[in-house]
């Protein structure tokens, strides 16, 4: 006799309860209890959870049916989702594979000067440029050049797509309060969902051999800051200036391109910086789903308990992070400087 038997009897539901018996497989604990021949003694007043209610009434599903239902629902929807998402996301695979090929097949004596030149162009700072050159050479010295380039290529593509998608979404949010209210919970979800959880549904949807699998995971994780800060940046634009733009009869397009975006640029750049950092964080975890790069070595360090391999790869990631952060921050301050030239 279970605790809630009396409840169902008084409610007159005993017939309905007897009608259904849970088809879910037994748990090990139940099996043991059955074999030992004695009923497990629960607490005096058990919480009315699905499992406890199920003991008194077979028609009520057990908790494991819930997880099972989610799984079955997802699997049922999978073919439809796949047929839509597959073609849409296919270019991402091409981009990632192309970038990977470009970064790894370009000889180092061409690639390193190009990267250093980009660093100088973006930051206009000799110190930052020298540091970038030093860090890349250092990684090359311990034969991590190739894996570092793999990681870098993934970050370039994913950050680029995040900015391309995130800035328009941020603009949309800044223009419509309703859109903002709808989007913020989704952004919160994307930001707080543990990074491993991103991978689970993606593994079901796409084949692990496809590069878009980790591409999507990285973009979903990293796109949030650039959306948020674009929205914030545009909303924070000086209302007096907006009023002046209106008073002189600017169209909303002229206002956006000529006033709002330029004035929001420092904030947007701060968002891009955060997006780069977050995609670097995710690219390591994405090595679980066959993303190449430094993350693979970290994973090897954990799996095989190869301490040295893991630590060298870890330091490589730190170096990459510092490079990307310093270059994008230097670019950010440069953008800010055009606002106040004293």
């Amino acid at each position, binding site marked *: 006799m279970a605790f809630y038997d009396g409840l169902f009897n008084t409610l007159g539901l005993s017939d309905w309860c007897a009608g259904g018996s849970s088809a879910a497989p037994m748990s090990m604990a139940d099996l043991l209890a059955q074999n030992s021949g004695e009923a497990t003694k629960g607490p005096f007043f058990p919480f009315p959870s699905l499992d406890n209610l199920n003991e008194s009434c077979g028609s009520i599903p057990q908790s494991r049916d819930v997880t099972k239902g989610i799984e079955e629902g997802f699997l049922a929807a999978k073919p439809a989702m796949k047929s839509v998402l597959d073609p849409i996301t296919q270019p991402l695979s091409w981009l990632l594979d192309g970038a990977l090929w470009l970064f790894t097949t370009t000889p180092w004596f061409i690639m390193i000067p190009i990267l250093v030149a980009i660093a100088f162009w973006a930051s206009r700072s000799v110190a930052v440029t020298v540091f970038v050159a030093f860090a890349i050479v250092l990684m090359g010295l311990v034969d991590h050049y190739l894996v570092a380039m793999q990681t870098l290529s993934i970050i370039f593509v994913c950050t680029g797509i995040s900015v391309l998608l995130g800035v328009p979404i941020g603009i949309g949010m800044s223009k419509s309060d309703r859109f903002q209210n709808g989007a913020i919970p989704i952004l919160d979800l994307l930001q707080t969902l543990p990074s491993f959880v991103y991978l689970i549904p993606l593994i079901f949807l796409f084949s692990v051999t496809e590069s878009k699998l980790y591409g999507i995971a990285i973009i979903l994780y990293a796109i949030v800051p650039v959306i948020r800060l674009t929205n914030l940046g545009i909303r924070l634009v*000086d209302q*007096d*200036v907006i*009023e*002046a733009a*209106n*008073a*002189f*009869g*600017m*169209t909303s397009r*002229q206002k956006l391109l*000529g*006033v709002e975006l*330029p*004035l929001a640029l420092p904030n947007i750049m701060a968002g891009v910086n955060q997006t780069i950092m977050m995609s670097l964080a995710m690219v390591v975890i994405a090595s679980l789903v066959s993303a190449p790069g430094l993350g693979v070595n970290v994973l090897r360090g954990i799996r095989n308990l190869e301490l040295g391999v893991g630590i060298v790869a870890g330091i490589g990631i730190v170096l990459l992070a510092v490079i990307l952060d310093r270059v994008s921050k230097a670019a950010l301050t440069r953008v800010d400087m*055009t*606002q*106040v*030239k*004293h």
Partner: protein
Amino acid sequence: MTQEPKVSLRGLYKIFGANGKAALKHVQDGMGKEELLVEHKHVLGLQDINVDMQAGEITVVMGLSGSGKSTLIRHLNRLIEPTAGEILVDGIDVMGLNETGLRELRQGKMSMVFQKFALLPHRSVIQNAAMSLAVRGEDEATQMREAQKWLDRVGLGGYEHHYPAQLSGGMQQRVGIARALTANTDIMLMDEAFSALDPLIRTDMQDLLLELQEELHKTIIFITHDLDEALKLSDHLVILKDGAVIQQGEPQDILLNPCDPYIEDFVSDINRARVLRARSIMKPLAKGAKYAGDCQINDNLESLIASSGGETSKTYRVLNGEEAVGQIDMLDLVRALVPRISSTQA
């Protein structure tokens, strides 16, 4: 003034709040600002504004903060939508315009100068000045030529390629004025344009504006909380209190005949000798009077006192150009200097 007013406001009401139209009824039934706020949680911005602004004149709207003057000026180009009433510009009802029409009005008929300058910080001075033309889609050469012309006119030649943050407040507002002038509109709206500047610069800017107005004859609507400024600039003065017009007319007239204790209070602190003009207090020419000298109708009383050397027995002849139009007895002049209630009583 029989000519058609350039801008006229008819029965304009503005009530801020969720349901302005419903609150409007209470106001029209005579509910006051405080009552409306307490009972209906709506803020009365403007009530029953009727003002005609003549072409080529400077209309000054004066009031203390919270009197609704900035709200009023934003109705003229519909930066704020009125709750009720008509706004006529050149006889066209601004309320009837659709989005495109309104944009054309803002681009082609009105330009605005702001208290906080509101320049684009990422554009150079000349790009800021050319903003209105860029908005209209004029070609680059025209933009630069016009902007340069007006920057030179307001005394900013040589600063074209600086950025606003590099300029002082006074210079930034000169850019603001150049921007409005470059737009080449008949109507200029100036929202407390000089209030953020320090007193000396403010006087400079007022002189600049009067000088420009002498040659351009624009229709200027100027908002200020400073009565000295209002009296110096205005051809037509509108005094606003709690969102309602309490007196409007020729400034000299308001000074001599304030119709409300609120205004009397205001004008009692003014240096009347500097503000009042000979034409305001002159009497018709009397036959056989002996004149100690001549003065022009727009001379202020200060200059008259200076030339009389403080003597009160003299009589001066008032000329309009060459023609004698009246006379001033120095005793009348002294009487006119005393306000109906003096500042010590107030």
